[in-house]
Each structure stands twice: as structure tokens, then as C-alpha cells.
């Protein structure tokens, strides 16, 4: 846990950071109150990052929601917590060791019967269940105990009560009136519950003074980005942790005149999406790793037929059904090379929740510009993590979809060798022959061709456009030292963690930097310039070191640059990197 986090003594007046871990069962609504705390942070100029684990059972099972609130920049969800809220004995037993020395543990005194007085931890027993039942009118049901806890935390940290009440009203106001009334009763009871004087737990004023700050999760922001990018059609099949994106698109696209289709399977989903793309729309499909595998044949087709297409893969623990609700970054090779034949395509990965919005716009631009499939590799951690950030400016970031049905000239060719393919969709009048879009190797007119020279030239064409893209991509910036002993490289949701790890290593006197790759295929040309001034490079990624000792991105970098100083920091325990892990493993390389 960060040294700066939480008060170090009762004398300290204000907090810069606090990590609150809510531990209960998945049906207790702890995600809901964690989300409210995160949203409050966004409204009070604070920074926030959340983290959750979800059981893959249908109902119930242990679950946590961790909220890292900070007055300054928050780069990671927190290793240890400053405050633990334990709803059950099993929650207490599993998470008390992750509470820092001198931390505070609130527990449901009706559920948790054995506590260990150790490491200076302050235990505060509160009958969450009984007090909630009493406050909401004596029915024996404990629904609302999460809101009770929210009220208690609100009082404890002296959070903005009016703003929380406003969020609650918005969240529950749409339901039956009694639901909001009970929620407010539970909240007030929690707020008023005497937990002693802890007046030192007051946050410093937040430093994010932008009044247009929003808080959201990665899946939602990907969906919002797709809408802003002009995507109006597509199809998918439900799979965790992708499903919420298709649920949002299914609900929202009709408002924009579009249609999102739930397909019978992954093969149909990608095929319908290619159909909409062939028909002249930019369209999106998505899935998690197993579903991406099923889409692979059609993705090869889209490379061959040069169809612009967006594909989102929210990665989860694999292989096979694996760990559907855990995080992993083990689909990189699949995304780049998973299909048959030589089928170049673009692969991007968002670095945080805010970037999910912008990467969707960039993916859409690249798909249109390079007329090929673009895969966005998100992951389970990003999908559900909540962060606060500036609201995107739609004056700058909005693309109105356009269907180009203009008549095409006599000399139109669907597959010109000297230019990037621009398809003529159905409905476009052709002065010459009508175009055939083909998955057979073809000549410039789309006629099937078994000519060996033509296959080579068309292979060159499909590859070279992405080589050109590679040369146009900027090198990532280096956080920390610009030269030194170790450069940490990350991709996807690890971005904040490696920066924080570099901050800590530098505080210990090491000369280290961090660089983050958003463009994974093609990568920006000349990456070797990035690490030329470092003695070693370590790629931190959530996948296995495999048979040869290197993770997936590390393997690609070593292959592309024949660079022996590239090392791997990998793990596959279903969790994101802890800062302490990254620090310890980096130190071994120093």
C-alpha cells in the first residue's frame, strides 16, 4: 500500500488517499455502493479507481469491491486497504490480512463473531443487518444493509452527504417509491450510527477542478465511444465480460437509428457484422477470448476481402471456459495471429477507462482508413473498473455516420493494387461492372484468381498498408527516467500500475522508466529507440511465460527486434498486478 495513503497517526488532519475494501457476497449490493462512492469522488474533484472480484457462480459467492479514493492522481486500485468492511465471517477471514497495519475494520457484529486483535487494527463492530432491518421497518429482510454501510462510511469520512443523497435519489428514484424511501431510511440510520470520533478521517480537497468530470467503467465507455465514432450496427452473442457492451448497444442504438442484433452464435455474430459493414456501415462485434476464437475464420475473410470492421475482445482468464470473471491478457497472440493464412489486421488496447472512449474512436478511424478489421483488446479489470475523468468533448469527438451511395465511375476497381480498397456498397450505381467482394484470392476487379504472382501482389498490398500505419504511429512517452537501468513496458489495464511502481522505485533511488503500448499490431516503428538508453527492459503483462520464458508481448518484441535485454514480468493468478509485486520483481532485474 502506498505510504502516502491514509493517516499515519491520529494527529494528522487530512487524508490524501484511502483504499476501502467492501467484502461480502455478490448479491449484497457492494458493487452498487462502491459505484456510488466512485461517482461521488468524480463529483468532488477527487480521483478514483475501483477494483472488483466477482464469483462466476449464478447467484451468491464471495465478492469484493475496492475503492481507491484520492485527492490527487490515482493510478491503481490499491494493494492493501486502509479500511475493510466485512459483511460475513468468511469476508473477514479472507481479507483481514490485506488490511494495512493500523487500518480500520468495520464488521457486521451479527455475522462476524471472531476477530483477531493484531497489527494495531482498529475493530469497529456494527450490527449492519439488525440495524438495517430496524431502520427499514422491521421486516426480517436485510436488503439495504449495503446502503446502511454507505451512510456509515459517509459519516466516518465526512463525505458530502447531500451529493450522496442526490446520487441515491437518481439511482433508486426510477423504481417504486418505497424503494427510495427504504434506501434513505437505511442511509440515515448508517449515517447516524455512533462509531466513535474519527475526525482525522477527512479528505483533502480534490485537485481535479474540472467541473465536467464523469465516472464510469470501461465497458460503458467503449460503448459510448462506439456511438461517438458513428457505429450504428453490429451483432454479438452474450459472454462474460463482454455482455454489458452489447446490452448497452442493443438498448441505445435505436435512439440513433441503429440496430444491434443478438445472434444465434459467435459465427453468426461476426458474419452479420461483416454483412452490415459490406452494406456500407461501420459495424462492431465483440466477445471474450473463447468467442474471439470462434470468429477467427470470418476475421481472416475480412482481412482478405478488405472489409472495415470493429471487434472488441474483453479478455478473461483462459484457456477454454477458464476463469470467466477474472482478469488476464492472454489473447494478444490470438488477436494478432489467431486466424488462418496471412491476414494482417490492427490490434489496439485501451490503457484506462477514459481511454476506452477514445480508443473506440481511433479504432473506427483506422478501420475506415485502412479498410481492414480492427480488434480492441480490453480486459475484465477495465470492463468493470470505475474511474473519474473529464467528460469527452463531443464538439471535437463526434463522427456522423455516412452511407456513401454515390455512383461509381467506369474504372472503379474494388481491389486496386496501387491504392487502399474503398468498397462500393450495395445501392451504389456502377457505371462499369458491379463489384464482387471475395474471400477467394482475387484480381483488382474481385475476380477469383489462382495466379501465383497476383497472390503475392495482393498479399503485399494487404500487408504494406499496415506497415505504412506502423510508420505513422508516434512512439509512446516514457514516464519517469528517460534513461537508466530498467524500462518497464505495459499494455492494456496495467498502465497505471507500472507508473506507480516506477514512482516507488525512483523514490527508492532507482533509475527506471515506464512506457505503455496502445498500438499492439502494428506497433509503432522504431520501438528500439525507446529502450536504447536503458540497460534492461521488462514487459509486465497478465499472461504466462510459456515454454520459452517470455510473455506474449515480450515474445513479439524479442522477435521483432532480436533484443536479448527484454525480460518478462508475468503472472496468471486472475488478479491485476499489485504495486508491491511489480516493485519486487523489478528489483530482481536491477
Amino acid at each position, binding site marked *: 500500500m502506498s505510504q502516502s495513503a491514509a493517516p499515519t497517526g491520529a494527529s494528522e488532519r487530512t487524508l490524501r488517499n484511502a483504499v476501502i475494501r467492501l467484502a461480502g457476497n455478490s448479491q449484497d449490493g457492494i458493487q452498487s455502493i462502491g459505484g456510488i462512492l466512485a461517482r461521488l469522488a468524480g463529483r468532488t474533484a477527487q480521483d478514483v479507481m475501483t477494483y472488483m472480484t466477482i464469483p462466476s457462480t449464478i447467484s451468491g459467492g464471495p465478492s469484493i469491491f475496492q475503492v481507491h479514493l484520492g485527492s490527487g492522481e490515482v493510478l491503481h486500485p490499491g494493494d492493501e486497504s486502509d479500511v475493510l468492511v466485512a459483511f460475513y465471517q468468511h469476508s473477514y477471514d479472507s481479507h483481514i490480512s490485506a488490511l494495512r497495519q493500523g487500518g480500520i475494520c468495520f464488521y457486521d457484529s451479527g455475522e462476524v463473531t471472531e476477530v483477531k486483535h493484531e497489527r494495531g487494527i482498529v475493530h469497529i463492530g456494527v450490527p449492519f443487518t439488525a440495524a438495517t432491518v430496524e431502520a427499514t421497518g422491521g421486516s426480517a429482510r436485510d436488503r439495504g444493509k449495503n446502503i446502511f454501510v454507505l451512510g456509515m462510511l459517509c459519516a466516518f469520512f465526512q463525505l458530502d452527504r447531500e451529493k450522496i443523497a442526490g446520487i441515491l435519489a437518481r439511482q433508486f428514484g426510477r423504481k417504486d417509491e418505497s424503494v427510495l424511501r427504504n434506501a434513505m431510511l437505511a442511509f440515515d440510520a448508517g449515517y447516524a450510527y455512533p462509531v466513535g470520533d474519527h475526525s482525522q478521517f477527512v479528505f483533502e480537497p480534490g485537485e481535479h477542478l474540472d467541473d465536467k468530470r464523469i465516472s464510469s467503467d470501461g465497458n460503458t465507455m467503449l460503448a459510448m465511444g462506439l456511438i461517438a465514432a458513428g457505429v450504428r450496427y453490429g451483432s454479438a452473442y452474450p459472454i462474460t465480460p463482454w455482455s454489458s457492451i452489447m446490452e448497452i448497444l442493443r438498448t441505445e442504438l435505436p435512439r440513433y*437509428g441503429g440496430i444491434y442484433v443478438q445472434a444465434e452464435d459467435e459465427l453468426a455474430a461476426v458474419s452479420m457484422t461483416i454483412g452490415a459493414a459490406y452494406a456500407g*456501415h461501420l*459495424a462492431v462485434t465483440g466477445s471474450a477470448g473463447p468467442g474471439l476464437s470462434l470468429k477467427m475464420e470470418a476475421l481472416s475473410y475480412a482481412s482478405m476481402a478488405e472489409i472495415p470492421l470493429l471487434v472488441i475482445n474483453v479478455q478473461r482468464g483462459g484457456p477454454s471456459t477458464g476463469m470467466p470473471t477474472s482478469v488476464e491478457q492472454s489473447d494478444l497472440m490470438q488477436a494478432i495471429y489467431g486466424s488462418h493464412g496471412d491476414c494482417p489486421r490492427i490490434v489496439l488496447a485501451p490503457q484506462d477507462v477514459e481511454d476506452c472512449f477514445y480508443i473506440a474512436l481511433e479504432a473506427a478511424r483506422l478501420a475506415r482508413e485502412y479498410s481492414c478489421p480492427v480488434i480492441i483488446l480490453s480486459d475484465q479489470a477495465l470492463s468493470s473498473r470505475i474511474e473519474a475523468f473529464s467528460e469527452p468533448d463531443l464538439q471535437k469527438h463526434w463522427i456522423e455516420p455516412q452511407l456513401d451511395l454515390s455512383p461509381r465511375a467506369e474504372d472503379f476497381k474494388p481491389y486496386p493494387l496501387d491504392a487502399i480498397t474503398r468498397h462500393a456498397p450495395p445501392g*451504389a450505381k456502377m457505371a462499369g461492372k458491379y463489384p464482387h467482394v471475395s474471400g477467394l484470392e482475387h484480381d483488382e476487379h474481385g475476380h477469383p484468381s489462382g495466379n501465383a504472382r497476383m497472390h503475392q501482389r495482393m498479399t503485399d498490398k494487404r500487408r504494406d498498408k499496415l506497415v505504412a500505419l506502423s510508420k505513422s504511429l508516434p512512439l509512446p512517452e516514457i514516464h519517469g527516467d528517460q534513461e537508466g537501468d530498467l524500462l518497464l513496458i505495459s499494455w492494456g489495464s496495467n498502465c497505471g500500475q507500472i507508473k506507480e511502481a516506477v514512482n516507488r522505485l525512483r523514490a527508492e533511488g532507482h533509475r527506471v522508466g515506464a512506457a505503455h503500448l496502445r498500438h499492439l499490431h502494428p506497433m509503432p516503428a522504431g520501438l528500439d529507440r525507446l529502450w536504447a538508453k536503458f540497460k534492461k527492459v521488462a514487459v509486465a503483462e497478465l499472461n504466462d511465460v510459456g515454454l520459452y520464458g517470455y510473455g506474449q508481448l515480450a515474445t513479439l518484441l524479442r522477435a521483432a527486434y532480436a533484443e536479448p535485454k527484454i525480460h518478462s514480468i508475468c503472472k496468471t493468478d486472475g488478479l491485476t498486478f499489485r504495486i508491491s509485486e511489480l516493485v519486487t520483481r523489478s528489483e530482481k532485474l536491477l
Partner: protein
Amino acid sequence: MSAPPTAATEEKLTKKALTADHPTWCPGCGDFAVLAAFYKVLEKLQYPHEKIVCVAGIGCSSRFPYFMNTHGIHFIHGRALPLATGVSLSRPDVHVFVFGGDGDGFSIGGNHLNHAARKNIKMTYVIMDNYVYGLTKKQTSPTSPVGFKSKTDPAGSIDRPINPMKQLLASGATFIARTHAAQVKHMVDTFERAILHDGFSVVECLSECVMFYEGSFDDSTPRKGGVFETIDESQHNVQDDIAAYQLADLPSPGKFGVFYQVQRPTKNALEQQWIEKTQATQNGQSGRDLLRRRLEGMR
């Protein structure tokens, strides 16, 4: 009801205008006649040239789009229907025609047939059924009869074949017909009725593979001594699925014509209704304003 044929377009749609590459099918292949019949129907209907889209998967018959001078897409094996679904739902202004064989439609793409049918996606699907895998040179197909000797069943097929009419009835297709490549007039009439149907219309067209299953349809070919018996619609109610099922159960060669036709709202129309209903509540706000308000809700 489907959009009526457009009467006057600048360009008259003739067989010449519709002809593209010379078909690469084997001499004597039944598919030539299907192509000829399709030209005739399009000449009759006179849709705007640029609004015609031909979609296919993989197989001999799936080369069809290359032989049509229309917008065309040759996709992967078994997925022509979902691709066509994407076109149909996102482009209500175009006419979508799907062509394929028994392997594409009933085997590798079998699941999609069920779902395109139950969702009643507006399109016309012509299945050129030859009871054999021809492009890969004689393997058993899902419609090969028991006992058929192929390279994958040298001792004769032991698997019960699919009954296309029964499958389509069960999956909820709203227009189901059967025709024969040796009966051009019957094909033309059946195709026309299928195309004018507002919904998912399927025509199974028996089309002989002279290379790998010669004589497969002799029992329904009068000049080979067979009987081509059409459905008498004064005796058969096309809206009666039980009667259609009984027709589908007749032993080979069975009957030809429209087995079943009902009107049910298409997914195209239902999705459009949802869009209109949703948009009616938005007071004409622009897309950008809608999204802005959505983002503001996250403050």
C-alpha cells in the same frame, strides 16, 4: 408485402445487363438452369440494378454471385445467411438474394437456417440441392439418401438425410417451396412468388450434379421416366402447416410448389418499429445531443 417492382428506371434490366463471368460449373450442371431462371425473374421484376445484392457461402452453387453482374459477395462456408441478415437489417432499401447448396445450408450453416427463419429476416434464399458435395468431389451431403456411395461412405451412407421442407416448417420460415432445375417455368414462377413474399422465403431447388451424382433426380424428371407432380393449391391450404408437413413426408420424389406461406412481421419491420417508437420520445434531438446528455448523466 414486399416493395413493388419499380416500374420505370433509367436502365432496363436485361439478361445482358445482368450477365457477368461465364459460369465455371461443369457442362450439364443443373445450376445453369437456375441462373437462367433467375435472370428471367429479375427481367420481369425490373428492380433498380444497383439495389440487387447476391450473397453466397461456399460450394459449387455458391459461385453464383460471380456470374451475376450485380452487387455481390462471396463469403465463407455456411455463413451466407447471417451475412445476408446484416445486409438486410441495415439496408432496408436493397433486395437480398442468397444462393447456396445443401452442405452450406443444411450442414455447416444449419443453425443459421433455423434462426434466419424464426426471425423472419426479409430475404430470398435459393438452395440448389444436389444431394452431394460436388466442389470437393463426391463426399456425402446432409441430404444424400441412405445407401449413397461416396468417398466418405464407400459402403453407402448410413445417416438419415435431412428433410428440408420439414426442417424449414419446424423452424418457422414464412415461405417454403420446392422446385426443380429441369422445370424452368416452375422455377421462374416459384422464385417470383418467393421474392414477392415479405419475409424469409426459401426455395429448395433440386439441381443435379452430373459429375458426382448423375441420375439423382431421375424419378422426378419426366424425360428420364420420372414424374414431376406439382402441388394443387385448390386442394392444399398453404397456410396449414400440418398439411405442409404431410406433403413434406411423401416418399421421393414428392411434390413440387409452395408448401407453406404465411404473413408474420419481419424482424426488419419490428426493429424499425422499435427505432421509430424510441425516436418519437426524443423530441428530435440530434445524436450528438443524445450522447452528450448520456455522458452528463455520469457526472
